[in-house]
Structures are given as C-alpha cells and as structure tokens.
C-alpha cells in the first residue's frame, strides 16, 4: 500500500491520464514531464515525448529526471537530439499533438502569465518568463496546462498575457491568428477543467478525489463554469503512485516488472 498522494502527485497523475498512446507531447520540465513519462510507462508506450532542449523521445533514468530541459539527463536515451529552433519548428509544422506546460498565473480564458505580476512598466514581481511556453501554446495542437490551485494564481484577468489561452474568447483568439492550436485542459490538484466551446471560459469537468465543487470555486478568483455532469476523478492507483515515486526518486523499482535495461530507463 502506498502512502497518501500529495497534491502535486494528484495533479501529475490526473495529467498523465489525459495523454493518449501514439501521440507526440511537447512537455515542460517538472510536473508536465513527470506526467508524460508516467503515461508512457503505464498506458501509452508509443507516446513520443519531446523536450525544449532538443531531445526527441528520451528515456529518463528514474531518480535522475532533468531539472532543466536542456541537460544531459533530458537527452538520455533519446532517438534524436535536434537543435532548439528545429525542435520548436516541428511544433510550428504541426508535428506535435500536445503541448503540456506549467503556469504561474492563469485567468478564466486560460491565458497564462509567467512574466510580470502587476503593471509591466512598474512590476511588483518579475517572473522567469516565457521560455518556450508562448511557442508551445501557439503551435502545438492541443494545449494542457498544469498548476497548483491557489486563489492568487487563478485570476479574473492575468496581468500580462505571456502565453495566450482564448484571450477574450474563441473569436479573439482566431482574430489574433492563433489557428494552429487550442487550449484543451487545465489540470490542478483540485480539479480538471475544460474550456466552454462558445465562450472559451474555464469549465469544471471533474474533481480530484474528495474535493468539492464549492472548494474549487472558493480557491478560484473568478466565476467558473461547470459541466452538466461534474464527475469525480478516480483516485490514483497504487501502481500510478509507485511508478511516479520511482521515477522521481529512483527507489523502489516501480510497480511494473523489471526487464533488463528497459526497466532502468523509461
């Protein structure tokens, strides 16, 4: 029996379940990458992961997941190491099914801010910036965004649109020329969100185990839409938890049977 999942684990496992086999996912480091590696290990063996530093289809060493997308750990076992421009241009060419990013601040249209808190001309906080996130949401077909659910992060309107979601709604997104991609899901430790097709606004689709819709609303700085049928997500399985922890810590050997070299690198 595994110990209780942490909020980050809940979020990561919920994210991993969204990734379908045979697809290509451009994953940011941290939870999006962990979710992608987990999916590949558990239910999507032909999922191709690509990383901003150039690695295409890497097999990470458990316990040595990369901290940055461009380091040796991220390149381990990759089929190809592309130049960074090329790596992004595959996205622009339409070769990637999913773009999977984290976020500092997000608003009801799924717009993401990783640049400035406050007025950009006189900011309260300067954040690390876009990196590849803006490029990912502009070009990968389906966009998944994962972040810890805090009221200060879920705001009516982001202070600065680093990576556009629906801007002010689907029409404004199309008018802006963002026709190659679309935001599909936001995954947090409290819930799973889709986007309302007509308004482009965040919509509660499912709740993390034991979380109430009310709690989600209280933790959100804007009015949330909700699906007709808000379901509860199945709790992480022991297998999911054991695999995730093994990937992260390199200890325990994972839930699946080891099979030579393949077992060490996933």
């Amino acid at each position, binding site marked *: 029996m595994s110990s209780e999942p942490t909020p980050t684990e809940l979020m990561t496992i919920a994210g991993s379940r969204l990734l379908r086999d045979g697809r290509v996912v451009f994953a940011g480091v941290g939870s999006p990458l962990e979710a992608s590696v987990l999916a590949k290990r558990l239910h999507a063996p032909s999922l191709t992961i690509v990383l901003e*530093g150039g690695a295409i289809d890497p097999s990470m060493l458990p316990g040595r997941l990369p901290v*940055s997308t461009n380091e*040796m750990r991220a390149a381990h076992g990759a089929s190809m190491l592309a130049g*960074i421009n090329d790596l992004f241009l595959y996205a622009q060419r339409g070769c990637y099914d999913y773009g999977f990013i984290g976020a500092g601040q997000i608003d009801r249209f799924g717009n993401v801010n990783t640049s400035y808190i406050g007025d950009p001309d006189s900011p309260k906080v300067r954040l*690390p910036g876009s990196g590849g996130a*803006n490029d990912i949401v502009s070009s990968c077909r389906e966009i998944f965004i994962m972040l810890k659910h805090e009221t200060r992060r879920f705001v009516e309107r982001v202070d600065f649109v*680093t990576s556009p979601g629906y801007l002010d709604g689907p029409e404004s997104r199309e008018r802006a*020329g963002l026709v190659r991609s679309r935001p599909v899901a936001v995954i947090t430790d409290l819930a799973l969100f889709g986007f309302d097709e007509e308004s482009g606004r965040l919509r509660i689709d499912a709740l993390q185990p034991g979380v109430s819709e009310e709690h989600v609303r209280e933790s959100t700085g804007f009015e949330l839409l909700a699906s007709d049928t808000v379901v509860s997500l199945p709790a992480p399985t022991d297998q999911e938890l054991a695999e995730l922890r093994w990937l992260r810590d390199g200890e325990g050997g994972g839930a699946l049977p080891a099979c030579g070299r393949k077992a060490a690198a996933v």
Partner: protein
Amino acid sequence: MRTAADKQTTLGEAATLVRDGDTVVAGGCCYSRTPWALLLELLRAERSDLTLGRNLMCYESELFLARGAATKLISSWVGIGLRWGIPRVFRDFVERDPSIYEEWSHLSFGMRLSAASMGLPFLPTASLLGSDLLKRLPAREMRCPFTDELLVAVPALVPDVALIHVHRADVRGNAQVEGPAYMDLELARAAKLVIVSAEEIVSSEELVRHNDRTLIPALVVDAVVEVPYGAYPHECHGRYEADFAHFDAYAERVNEAGVEGVQAYLREHVDDAGSFAGFLDSVGASALLDQRRKARELVSA
C-alpha cells in the same frame, strides 16, 4: 581574417576582442555548454555597457548585472531551474527598471538569430501572436503574401560577439559538439565576431576524419581557445554534469544577501581566483572528476 590558418589564442586575448557596448550572445542553453570561462573572462576584464543575450539565461545574467558589465539583457527566460526559484537579483534589477530586459519567446528569439544566420533582415513565425509580449517588442504582425495568413515578423539579431563552448575544435576554428547543438550554429553564423572555447584542440586531420560531425565551420570563427572544463560549473554533454552543489551555494548566498551575495561570488571566483585555471583549482580536482564520472554514467547507462 576568418580563413587564417591558426586562430588559437588565450582567454585573456580573446576578451580583448570584445568592446564595451557590444551585444554579446552566449551559446549553449541555460546551464548546458555555457561558455563560462569566456564569460568570466569578460567580467575579469571589466567590460561594461554590454547587452547580454541568450535563449535561456542562467545566473550569468546576475553576474553581469551585478558587476555592471551588462546594462541590458535579451532572453526568453532567466533562472537556474525550478529547484532554485525565481532569480532574486535579476528580479530586483528588472523590477527597478523593466526597460533593461527585453523578453522574447524561446522560438522568436531563435528566429531572430536564424534570420541573421540566413542573411535575412527578418523571418516570420507563428509565435507571439495575440500575446502581450508582442506589444512590447520590436516585432510586428505581417501577412503571408500568398495565403494572407497572419504571422509575426521578427527582426534579425546580429550580435557583435558570439561566445560558444564546444567539445573539439581545430586551430582554424572548425568546431564539433556532442549531444544537442542548442542554437549554437545559428548563433555562430549570425554574429559579427565568433569566439570559440573548446574542451580540446585537435589536429585538422583528426577533425576531418569526422567531417560530418562539424557543426561550425572555420569560415565564421575568429578566435579559438582551449579550455578544458570551460563550461564548468555548467555541464558539457558527455564530459561533466552541472554542479548543482555549486548552484545551491550560489543561490544560498543570493537568498541571504541579494546583490551582495553576487558580489561575494564574483570576488571569490572572478577576482581572487585570478584566472579560470585558478577558479578550477578552487573548485578542486575531486569535484571536477566527480562531475565527470556522473556524466559518463549518463552516457553509458
């Protein structure tokens, strides 16, 4: 002359090729294959008024700001990594004066170098559309002359100087890397002056034996310096892993003392060390060999 038969020089001489006020762009990416020895040498040489550019910028950003060497940064992301949080000194400088930082997305930054490397004044991209980044940047929307599709044109970035660290080079400047190339090729072709540091200088005969591995041709390179561990404490693919303990110590100093922490780092590793060799000495052979062992593990695992 870029076709000179021997462009080998020293770190000190290489630094004299950079002039105050230059736009300097560093190769590698974040803490991978950073031309660290060359960067420290610019700090040691008290270069000033530089614009420092890089696709993803590590804490060289803070060293250059704190030293007064750079007065402007161009990048898409600044930090060490999630584990070390938001870089505090970078924050302080930009929050005081946002105009010192020009923020692009990763690809649009790369396309600026690509444009320059292709001899074009601009390139189109599908990035930046609809974002607030676009509003603050010298980029502009344009339409495809054939399809009328809305795109963003980014202007070529022609750095005065490119600093690039590689695995192998010959004295003419032909350079080869192992692992990812990052944006080094685009950068080498884009810049007016290209300085290469290499883990090892090899004979041209040796280099030619693997000529389909050459990334950067001599004809765009101006100076070559042999610097083993020249990216340390950053990583060099297959040679040594990044020294996270060194990053931790840096981050701790900065978290405790802000810009004073950066100054202390500079005093120790740039001024007191006296040279990059002195810096490596202070790091110690066992730490260097440890990082080498970890890199070997990753290559062979």
